[in-house]
């Protein structure tokens, strides 16, 4: 293990930087050999970090120098965004990945922390977008508040599920959420109040009067109008990430974990399983809703299609593949899951088959996901020591 601070910090800078460079390359890559190289490289780095002594030391260093690693990630994100500033498609993908990752942070809070398998994540995501559509269409609410309302409405509608979700566990919860997702999608499609199957149009995001739809340059430099969206999406992810970390590294984090692992023991020590599960579920839903609202505004429309079971499954797959409870794993998995299908055009007929096989392989042979959740280390002194 590197003893003094400098090599550890260097590692905490190098690893996130490397990861972001890889993801950026993946986004820009067109040729098949590039894509294969990136994926193989990604796996190789993972194996080294996981299976070798120096690799594990480097990984531990990243965890220890959390703030350095996070700062590197922020800078790397900005660099990537600036590099792609004129590339509409790459920025759209970055924003899509960031917003999915934000939703998946919420899903992580529900599944990894609270132990609630939410198979209606895409339905809640779409609900956020519908909220944005209704509020921007019928009110003059400032757009930042519209985002917040997207989260609030999604959270409140989640209350409908709370009773059955709290009274049951495991598979029963999964079924309740599956049923809710199907029900919601069906309802939105059949009922014409919210545009029926065609859905609704949503105006561009315009916080403080900056209409994102019309931005073509920043400080005189020509940029894609997707750049502000990508920035906003990245910022949103940053906030969700921070909130989730705060939650995890707090008394509530311990409480939610305890309630998930052993509700009986937790309740004998004074914790109410219902309260903490509900907390996890509602906070998670709020994040999913906010991400959905911004996604809807970026796309300019929302329709019931997005609420489908398949979409929810994609989000859950991202969370499980990334590693339940590991937020960086979630980012990596969203990038791979969302960007890869588009890159695999030559084998498009077999994409779904391959995707399913990959998920099976990971669940079977690496059940913790690509990056398993690390142990919580609390206390300022121990943080440095570990």
């Amino acid at each position, binding site marked *: 293990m590197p003893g003094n601070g400098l090599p550890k910090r260097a590692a905490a800078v190098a690893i996130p930087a490397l990861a972001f460079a890889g993801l950026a390359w993946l986004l820009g890559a067109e040729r098949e050999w590039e894509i294969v190289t990136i994926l193989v490289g990604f796996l190789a780095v993972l194996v080294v970090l996981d299976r070798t002594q120096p690799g594990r030391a480097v990984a531990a260093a990243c965890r220890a120098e959390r703030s350095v690693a996070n700062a590197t990630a922020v800078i790397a994100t900005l660099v990537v965004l600036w590099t792609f500033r004129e590339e509409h498609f790459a920025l759209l993908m970055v924003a899509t990945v960031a917003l999915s990752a934000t939703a998946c942070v919420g899903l992580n809070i529900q*599944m990894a922390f609270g*132990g609630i*398998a939410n198979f209606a994540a895409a339905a809640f995501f779409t609900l956020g977008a519908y909220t944005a559509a209704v509020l921007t269409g019928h009110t003059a609410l400032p757009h930042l508040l519209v985002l917040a309302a997207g989260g609030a409405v999604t959270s409140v509608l989640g209350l*409908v*599920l709370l*009773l*059955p979700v709290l*009274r*049951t566990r*495991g*598979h*029963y919860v*999964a*079924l*309740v959420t*599956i*049923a*809710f997702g*199907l*029900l919601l999608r*069906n*309802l939105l499609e*059949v009922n014409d109040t919210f545009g029926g199957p065609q859905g609704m149009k949503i105006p561009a995001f315009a916080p403080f009067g900056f209409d994102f739809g019309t931005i073509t340059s920043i400080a005189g430099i020509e940029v894609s109008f997707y750049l502000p969206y990508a920035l906003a999406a990245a910022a949103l992810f940053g906030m969700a990430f921070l909130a989730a970390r705060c939650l995890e590294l707090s008394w509530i984090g311990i409480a939610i974990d305890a309630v998930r692992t052993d509700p*009986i023991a937790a309740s004998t020590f004074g914790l109410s399983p219902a309260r903490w599960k509900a907390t996890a579920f509602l906070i998670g839903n709020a994040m999913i809703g906010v991400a959905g609202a911004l996604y809807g505004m970026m796309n300019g429309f929302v329709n019931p299609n997005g609420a489908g*079971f398949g979409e929810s*499954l994609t989000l*859950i*797959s991202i969370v*499980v593949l990334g590693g*339940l409870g590991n937020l960086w794993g979630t980012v990596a998995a969203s990038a791979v899951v969302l960007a890869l299908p588009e890159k695999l055009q030559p084998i498009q*007929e*077999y994409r*779904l*088959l391959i*995707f*399913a*096989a990959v*998920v*099976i392989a990971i*669940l*079977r042979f690496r*059940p913790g996901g690509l990056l398993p959740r690390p142990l919580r280390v609390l206390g300022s002194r121990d943080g440095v020591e570990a």
Partner: protein
Amino acid sequence: MDIGFLAQHLFNGLMLGVIYAMIALGFSLFFGVLDVIKFSHGDVVTLGAFAALGAIAFVGSVVPLPGLALVLGLLAAIAASMAAGMVIGGTLVLPLRNAPPVNVLLITLMAGTILREAIRLGVPNGGNPKPFPALLPDRRIEIGSFSVGIDSVTILLAGLAVVVATHHLVTRTRLGLAIRAVAQDPEVACLSGIDFRRTVLGTFALGSALAAVAGCMLGLYYREINFSMGLVLGVIGFAAAVVGGLGSLLGPILGGFLFAGVQTLVTITVPSASAYKDVAAFAVVIALIGLFPTGLISERASERV
């Protein structure tokens, strides 16, 4: 409403209920022995139907004997589904026995996706619906406005017989005893000389065979099968099993008929709202789970402390 049409609706609902119940029974059996949900079950139904279709087409091209074709088709369906069920059970579900429930759910969902995609890509023009040959005599019984094909009655009776036989198998035979013992307490069952792995695989085989029969019934009844029918059936079967009570035998049968009943009722009473029938059915599911968290017929005592 005319009594004839009422009878017709009742018949439709019964038919649907039997099919749902057979699929739900599988879910309940798997849950009983392993405490897992095997979500690929709906696609095993599809696999059975397509295997039967293949065998029937093959037999039909050799000898023109509809009866033989039907029997061989059924056997092919059962063989294919059993194999698929046991492979999925043995390689994916058993090793993940101690993993979180979500993992098992997800891995079997993906296994179902593979089955579904393999059928779509493997069968010529697999993306299109396929006609299922009418192999049963298709004379009709007409009583007033009630008209029903003899084949429909045959299918319904066969379905009911299979459900009853399954019940008998689980409650009266050695395999059934082993299944129930493992469901009660795997450790004690192992101590008393029951081979855990074999019993579990046997249960998967039994459940999958039920799925195969359900698949053939679907084909014979609707005369059309398609690669994606398993997904919806899987969700409905799962819902019926959960509402009825996972792990129990009567629960899923009850749940199946309940689900079919709600669907049929909505369509009859408010035709313009027939699109809401899934909304209604799933709302009932959510409400029932809220009211009866462990199902209508609960087999599980409260958790041991």
